């Protein structure tokens, strides 16, 4: 039995009718065409489907759409404004922290949340923040470098 929900995604309000078991990930990808949020496992093991809810990274494959109302949701598409890359996005690009790119949206969102809360994280804090994200291409070295670089640039702004 479908129910009405109201979701705030990237600043836009969406009114939708959803089944109770529908996940936020399904809403984003299949209903709203926001395919920047990726699904690699669908069972909360890889971090690819991460979005920010009230600034905190959550796994959208494990979140029911009905539970995500009345809180601002940010996906990768909503991160940069006016086509300009954020410092985190730019650092990922400059440091070679992107290869196939499938884990990138989730990595970028979790890194953004981290730096929002902790502008100068230690390497261990970076690892802790990104421990739920699998990346098979980069070996993570350049991802760590990118987060440090972003922190440095944001501090010098």
């Amino acid at each position: 039995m479908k129910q009405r929900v109201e979701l705030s995604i990237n600043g836009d309000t969406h009114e939708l009718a959803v089944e109770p078991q529908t996940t936020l990930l399904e809403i984003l990808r299949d209903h709203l065409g926001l395919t920047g949020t990726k699904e690699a496992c669908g069972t909360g093991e890889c971090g690819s489907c991460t979005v920010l809810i009230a600034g905190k990274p959550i796994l959208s494959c494990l979140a029911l759409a009905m539970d995500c109302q009345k809180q601002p949701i940010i996906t990768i598409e909503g991160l940069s404004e006016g086509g300009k890359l954020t410092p985190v996005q730019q650092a990922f690009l400059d440091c070679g922290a992107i290869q196939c790119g499938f884990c990138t949206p989730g990595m970028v969102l979790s890194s953004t949340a981290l730096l929002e809360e902790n502008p100068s994280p230690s390497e261990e804090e970076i690892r802790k923040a990104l421990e739920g994200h699998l990346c098979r291409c980069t070996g993570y070295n350049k991802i760590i470098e990118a987060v440090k670089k972003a922190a440095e640039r944001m501090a010098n702004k």
Partner: protein
Amino acid sequence: MDSTLTYIGQRIPRKDGPEKVTGRAIYTVDIQLPGMLMGRILRSPHPHARILNIDISRATNLKGVKAVITAQDTIGKKHSFVETPRYPADQYPLATDRVRFVGEEIAAVAATDPYVAEEALSLIQVDYDPLPAVFDPEEAMQSGAPEIHPSHPKVTKPLMNVAGKTESGWGNVERGFAQSDHIRQDRFESHLRTHGYLEPQATVASFEPGGKLNVWTSSQGPFIKRAKLAGTLGLPFSTVRIQKAYVGGAFGGKIDLFSHEVCASLLSMKTGRPVKIVASREEIFTAYRHGQPLIVEIKTGVKKDGTLVAQRARVINNCGAYRGSGVVVIFLAWGFIMIPYRLPNLAYEGYAVYTNNPIRAPQRGHGAPQVRFAVESQLDMIAEELGIDPVEIRLRNARLPGEQLPNGDNVHNCGLIECIQKAAEHTEFRKKYGMNRSTPRFGGRIRRGIGIGVSSYFSGSLIYPNSSSVVVKMNDDGTVTLLTGALDIGQGAETILCQIVAEELKIPLEEIQVIAADTETTPVDIGSWISGNAYVSGNAARMAATEVRRKLLDIAAGEMEAKVEDLRVEDKSIYVASSPGQRLTYRQLVATSIQKRRGDPIIGEGHWRAMRDEPFHPSLATTKGRWSENYAFDAQVAEVEVDIETGQVRLVRAVTAHDCGFPINPLLVEGQVDGQVSMALGHALMEEVLMKEGRTLNPNWLEYRMPTIHNVALSEYINVITEQYKMDRSYGTKEGGEGSTSAILDVAMSEHVDVRPKHVELGPPYRSKEAGEGLVSAILAAIANAIYDAVEVRLNTTPFTPEKILRGLGKIR
């Protein structure tokens, strides 16, 4: 020194980065078409069974189901990764009368949503008659083992389950062993690992009423896919169009034709609607293709000083229920023994054996990790027995530049010696090796060890489609469009091709548009799976750009009444060297060409083929024939810490000294090194697909542990430059162009001496070598050798689990 290189050799961020970092890059899984149906596949629960009957009637009648297909909907044509007279195709896209592994595809459904499709699968009734099954390759080779392909022509009688055999060698091994001072024989075994690509296997097929089949599929190259898909569907190649979608990782696992690609196509043809099939992660773990565990038995004879005299190697590959790339691995295993060290006598035999396991795929390194683990581990054992240090024994046997390999190939500008020396020097290997055994640095329970390994990999060979062609077009506004069939799977294929074009035409990367990986609009390309992108496609791009430049220079010479050799190319324009004010922009030159040369808009085409004078690839059965003209080399050093209480091993540091010719983009090369070190770390210490009687026991990432951000080794790189980028000064690049070009060049082997006549249009073959899969092997061996150095436990089987370490230490039984 002034650098002549503007784009090549620069740390340029990847061209598709902005798309990927903003979520705008569209992967196959992201494609949505109007009216699209979702497909699901019914798979065998049995490892081996006869199919007695398939009843689809209930599924067909389910509301929302638009089509159900079985083998009867196919044209009954088999396909295979390898299709030769000796190894004919052996797999139907949907099982006909028999299933041979758990997960084999039996039927497929297209429905209005994935949940309906899933429900429909449960309504398909299949009656099976289970048959005896065999899972171990050596058991499968015994007489009396269940025969997996009874109606198949046999490769070797009476061994019914042998899918393929490779026999090769040179010299006289028996005489070689008789001449040896020291002989060792060992057996090494490797385990089952999966590729771990994040984007699931996925295909969208959309059949047009006019007869065109449009396909987007997560793959490693559209041209081999089109050949196999069209062949299996019985369609002319020209009616199947495979288009580009971003690829979320592949690592060898997405090359071959898969049943879901055939099923999505057939379902779309049957319903007239687009059909999408996405595999679940559990399906990928249980029914898709993993790598290839090898048994490597190796007997080696050496002189007292460690010089290799003779080797006898026997390799057995458990290739699963169908050949997959199993018969290629037993060929390649021979090659990976042959390349790095001089070896006067070799006798080699390799067997690919059918078992009732899922099929195997190529996996980054395609046999090299397993083979180098065996050879390099044994070499360390021999070195210790002879009292030689591991670096010395490798230097003594390593190939030198210009040596001819026993198969007739030449290693040209081989930088192996430099790789070994640099890796050892950088890590103070000789000082550290053995030290921790006598006086453990940390005392306590943590022991530190250091180990080295060596490997080599080919850069492109002759397998369909054998060729790369690139088209470079000038646009009215003076910008450039690059058309390539190359598919960027994350390694940066598009970026480096752009860098090559940018360099030849002195135009920024931002002004080069790329159209890629579309069988209809882009020229043929060998694909991102045979380590030939930089070399084969790179040379094609260089030729195409050179043709464009030749035309531009020619027009400029006429317009400015100057000789071509007096012209200089710079910043999208051409000027006269002696009077830089005399200058024409590309935009002006294109307009002039159209006006004065009968409308010529200036287009260049270039093509390249590895082994261009050879008709065919080498024989998989005998290895005869040339294999590659371009080999990359590397030496890798691992430093590990072993906890003698828990048996846990940590890879602390990985140093890669590699000869990739010339790094076109060091940033991307480093990314390849890091990724391979990480993959080897997982291979060595963490990952194993556990199977019992053909069923996967750990089909998810919680139980199959891939490295996370907590499992990262310090990764260091040493570029051994064996190929100066061949600049032709007649092109009008800046003066003083010889020599190395930036601080990243650590070792320049061959001084660049350009004595060619001034008006040469294209330099010698551009031997940038592969960097994408050769560096996953030596590091595995180095980890094994470092563990031995730390705790004197020699492990002959991967992975190096705490249990094996503790058993080796005598702490558990």
